């Protein structure tokens, strides 16, 4: 995740014209003379689908885009894919883009799967020879067997989608755009699609993923962009963006005061987190500690109104957005009964088995449905120091057993991690 970003979206706005008959006739002449069919109308009327959205996606990074229907997700995808042009701002994409927006778009029903795969592959930017070269892999992945030579109109919808997906991923794109397509196909195929996407991630493909399946976004995406009514509410670690979205949904459903706040901290304030601290084994607040030491996270809270439905949660992640660990009282099986006044709750780690580096802590208190009382992203950061500065997240207690090699055990203080 370094170097030139694969996708750079800067202050992008998109306004759709609202089509009116008067506008059409009015601008017939203008269309030919100026090439701008909607110039006058654009300023007066129109639908603002996106306003001032900015973000970057690095190579190998997966960005989820979430939000309610009509929030501008698909418009943003089409802007990145180059299908639409932004009204304002810039979209820069480095490399070949493949959009899985509609699988099998443009398949011709009368000709065979093989010929359609050829045409589709070439439309996605491959040469004829490249498609022919990859055709066996496509057929195998799509599991079409002898059906590949039948006209596409005889395919089941599952076969259609499998072929579409197989062709699209065979392109080996630099940027892959996925719009809500993993919901199709059976369990086995959905699983293979995920595997394929994970492989692309490892190969350094930047992926933009739009889905209403928030679990999938949390699972696949490193970061996520939460859009609402065309503006970015939050662009950050996938877990945080998903939590913020869930909280807003829960607020809408229960008609409670909606979450307010910045993109780092939000909630309706019924319960507030007053402090979040990392304590070492001597109960001292620390910012640096050694890997493998005992530690605990302490959350101090104030319940401004008594609550009967509440969940405390914490999550750790790296600065780059890599999720490290997270849990909450509900996931661990604790039943809420009553929360009132002020108090504290701790998560204890007998050994904090983290690798060296800087970690960020998110802490939250919310209802079981996800409505945030107080959700604080990156409320605390701490650094873990270890003897072995290997990159990663996990540094478990371990020992070597050389049954054969002649190795000299290090002295006690050298070994300590």
């Amino acid at each position, binding site marked *: 995740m370094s170097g030139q970003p694969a996708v750079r979206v800067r202050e992008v706005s998109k306004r759709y014209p609202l089509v009116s008959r008067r506008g059409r006739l009015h601008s017939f002449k203008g269309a030919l003379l100026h090439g701008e069919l909607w110039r006058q109308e654009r300023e007066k009327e129109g639908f603002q689908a996106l306003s001032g959205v900015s973000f970057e996606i690095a190579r190998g990074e997966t960005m989820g885009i979430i939000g309610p229907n009509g929030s501008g997700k698909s418009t943003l995808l089409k802007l990145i894919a180059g299908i639409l042009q932004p009204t304002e701002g810039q979209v820069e994409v480095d490399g070949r883009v493949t959009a899985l927006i509609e699988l099998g778009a*443009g398949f011709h029903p009368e000709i065979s799967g093989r010929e359609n795969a050829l045409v589709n592959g070439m439309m996605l930017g491959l040469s004829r020879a490249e498609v022919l070269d990859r055709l066996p892999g496509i057929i195998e992945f799509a599991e079409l067997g002898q059906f590949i030579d039948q006209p596409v109109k005889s395919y089941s919808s599952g076969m259609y989608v499998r072929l579409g997906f197989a062709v699209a991923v065979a392109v080996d794109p630099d940027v892959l755009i996925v719009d809500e397509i993993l919901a199709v196909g059976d369990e086995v195929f959905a699983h293979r699609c995920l595997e394929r996407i994970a492989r692309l991630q490892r190969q350094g493909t930047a992926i933009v993923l739009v889905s209403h399946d928030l679990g999938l976004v949390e699972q696949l995406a490193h970061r996520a962009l939460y859009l609402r009514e065309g503006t970015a509410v939050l662009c950050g670690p996938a877990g945080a963006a998903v939590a913020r979205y869930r909280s807003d949904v829960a607020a809408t459903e229960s008609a409670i005061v909606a979450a307010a706040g910045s993109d780092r901290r939000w909630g309706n304030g019924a319960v507030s987190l007053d402090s979040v601290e990392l304590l070492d084994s001597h109960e001292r607040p620390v910012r640096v500690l050694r890997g493998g030491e005992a530690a605990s996270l302490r959350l101090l809270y104030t319940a401004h109104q008594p609550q009967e439905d509440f969940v405390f949660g914490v999550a750790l992640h790296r600065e780059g957005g890599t999720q490290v660990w997270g849990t909450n009282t509900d996931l661990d099986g604790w039943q809420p009964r009553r929360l009132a006044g002020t108090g504290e709750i701790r998560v204890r780690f007998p050994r904090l088995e983290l690798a060296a580096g800087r970690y960020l802590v998110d802490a939250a208190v919310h209802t079981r449905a996800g409505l945030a009382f107080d959700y604080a992203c990156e409320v605390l950061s701490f650094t873990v120091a270890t003897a072995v500065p290997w990159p990663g997240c996990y540094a478990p207690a371990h020992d070597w057993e050389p049954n054969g090699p002649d190795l000299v055990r290090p002295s006690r203080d050298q070994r300590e991690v």
Partner: protein
Amino acid sequence: MVASLYRQRGLIAVLVGRDLKARYRGTFFGFLWSLLNPLMLLAVYTVVFTWVIPAPRQVVVPFPLFLFAGLLPWLFASGALLDAAVVLPDNGPLLKKVVCPPEVFPTVTLLSHLVHHLLALPILLAGMAVAAVLGLMSFSWTLLLLPLAVGLWVLAVGGAVLAVSALAVHFRDLKDLLHNVLNLVFFLTPIIYTPEMIPVPALRRVIEWSPLTPLVTLYRDVVLLGREPGPSLWLAGTGVALGSALLGTFVFSRLRETLAEAA
């Protein structure tokens, strides 16, 4: 735009192949229809103008062949234009969901109609050969000029196809309008008659100024009548062809960015 088309030449070739394959898929005669259609047409004209209606005397070659030589390029033009009016909306899913330069689609329309035209040509030549054997006419060296005449038609039709395809996206009425305009142009062009047959001189002048007149005349002169076209005819034909090509390219490139959104 020309550069973009050249880059997409592989895709265009595959799409033209797909069009041709899909067209007659599942029919009994399959690809033979490309030959059978014009053959039937020629047969019908031969019967009608030999036994039903007396052929006009001004025409020196067998009248069915005269008609056929005029109709072939006309069918190429009108077929391509009618398809052009729907090609971008029909391919809307591709334009909207896949990054694909829009000029590919009208080009495919033009080329697949050109292929059909070229497949119908042998029928005309065969008809001429039969007539020549019967001593009704003779072949002329001007047949060698045919590729030039076809080239002018391709330029003219290509420009119109580009303009129509882009405009039809924004003005859906164009498709219906086009039917009527084509009907009018058909009768304003000396396809089923020669300008000399028109009794009213004013009307004859209108016909002579119809933009398709030089192209039809040129085509028929070289392929059938064995007349060497004069410089003024060449000039008029080339003017119409280049004018159409430039205007069409201009219109299309002006509207290009709006097509994916509106298709």
